[in-house]
């Protein structure tokens, strides 16, 4: 049926074919030009920002004592890596922070998913617990860190706990919403086909909510790092947060910025891994529905 339609378009004259080639070539040129422009802009932007920073601090317009200096930050980075810190090597400290953030991330994500799925499916439970979740969510959670440090000491556990608390609410609300957004027709369909409540969850609810949950993991890991760092600043024996608070105490802004850079690299790497996971788990999805996926 469709074949007859395309058949009429088949006999294209030679002149037309040339025109098509011409259009193609110019379209490709335009695309290459745009790509070059984008990359030029991408390189130019940090050159202006970092160069300007370096320039203004060198000229003394901006005080490098308070605001640091890119070259100084680089020196601090090199010193951190080669000479280590007062609290052991930078790698050991970084490992401590990553471990705390990662455990917190796992704990918070796990709890968020389980509770989100549970409350999303059970309206009665959601109505009972709902207001309290809102109340707890309105607590400034960073302050909880202070309580955790006092209650559980300077070890790993309070850091993991604070990271988990920060992660929990993000994942929880997404999982909850994901369950609520399930297509009721799909549920009716499998129910009629004889699915038990558990099978409804396995075939419909969980895969459907997974889109929302995975989307939340991007933000969640960033928050896990924040939780671990803040808890370390509040009190620790090891970790990047401790180095930061120590450097702040001695007005060593370059080291603060250096630590910030290290943690950004870690977060970027984690973000990359989560994107890989997302691509693998959500391979069924139509290709990028939103422009923001490209950023």
């Amino acid at each position, binding site marked *: 049926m469709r074949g007859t339609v395309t058949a009429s378009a088949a006999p294209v004259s030679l002149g037309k074919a040339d025109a098509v080639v011409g259009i193609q070539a110019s379209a490709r040129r335009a695309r290459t030009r745009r790509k070059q422009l984008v990359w030029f802009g991408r390189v130019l932007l940090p050159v202006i920002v970092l160069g300007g920073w370096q320039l203004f601090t060198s000229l003394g317009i901006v005080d490098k004592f308070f605001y640091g200096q890119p070259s100084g930050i680089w020196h601090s980075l090199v010193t951190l890596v080669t000479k280590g810190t007062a609290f052991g090597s930078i790698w050991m400290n970084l490992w401590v922070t990553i471990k705390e953030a990662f455990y917190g991330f796992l704990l918070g994500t796990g709890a968020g998913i389980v509770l989100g799925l549970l409350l999303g499916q059970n309206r009665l439970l959601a109505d009972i617990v709902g207001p309290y979740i809102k109340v707890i969510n309105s607590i400034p959670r960073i302050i909880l860190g202070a309580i955790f440090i006092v209650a559980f000491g300077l070890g790993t556990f309070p850091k993991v706990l604070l990271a988990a608390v920060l992660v929990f609410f993000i994942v929880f609300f997404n999982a909850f919403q994901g369950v609520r957004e399930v297509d009721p027709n799909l549920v*009716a*369909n499998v129910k009629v*086909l004889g*699915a038990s409540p558990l*099978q409804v969850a396995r*075939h419909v609810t969980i895969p459907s909510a997974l889109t929302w949950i995975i989307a939340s993991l991007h933000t969640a890991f960033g928050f896990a790092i924040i939780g671990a760092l803040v808890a370390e600043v509040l009190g620790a024996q090891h970790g990047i947060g401790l180095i930061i608070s120590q450097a702040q105490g001695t007005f060593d802004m370059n080291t603060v910025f250096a630590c910030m850079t290290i943690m950004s690299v870690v977060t970027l790497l984690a973000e990359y891994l989560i994107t890989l996971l997302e691509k693998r788990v959500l391979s069924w999805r139509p290709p990028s529905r939103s422009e923001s996926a490209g950023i």
Partner: protein
Amino acid sequence: MAEWKPDSARIEIAGLTKRFLTPKGEVFTALQDVTFTVEPGQFCAIVGPTGCGKSTTLGQVAGLDRPSAGSVKVGGREVSGITKGISFMFQSDALFPWKTVLANVMVGPSLNGMPKSDAVELARDWLRRVGLAGFEDRYPHQLSGGMRKRVAMAAAMINEPQILLMDEPFGALDVQTKAIMQTELLGLWEQLRPSVLFITHDLDEAVALADRVLIMTSGPGSIKEAFDIDLPRPRGEVQAIRHERRFLELQDQIWASLKDEVQQAYARTAGAA
């Protein structure tokens, strides 16, 4: 395949009434004293203006919802819980977007406890029947609307249901695709002969497909009139039937009955707006 259908495929609805509580706390009667019977293997269509409780009726037969009064019997037994041997088809495709075409069709047999290799075999066979061989590994979003409908049809038919409930299944399709899908549905129905309860607002569709057309009034929904469609079976191409004299006569008769309802429903919504 199955010429003779046991009585278990008979749907008997008597005095069915369904009331809902609106968010404002008022009682809304969606269905009022609905009574009709679908004989085993019969293709029954319900036509009526939008919002007259057609879909509510289907939910009652499937056992997804309980009646406020009256009785719904399938195969002589009162419906309680999910009715066995039923398949549903919706206006939306109701396919799993995260499952491949093959996995989508396999859901029914898998839930019935069929071993996986047999289910794959059966699903492949059904995809061949609806003309989708070679598309097993695609995802629903990669298919056209008509192809998705075929997948939904295979998924609904694969369990060889005794009763097929269809809620405006072709409502969202373009006219040409709709006609093709209707012809294919008739083909499959003639092979399996399930009892069909087919909801539509398209009178032509109802007359072309069904043995019996019920007209439903709105606010509250109840059965106004029933027409037997004596067009011969097999009907063949749906598009060809539309030009037959008998088709036009029946269509005329039924439209006369339906017209008032549609106008009243329209006046109500226009008045409310």
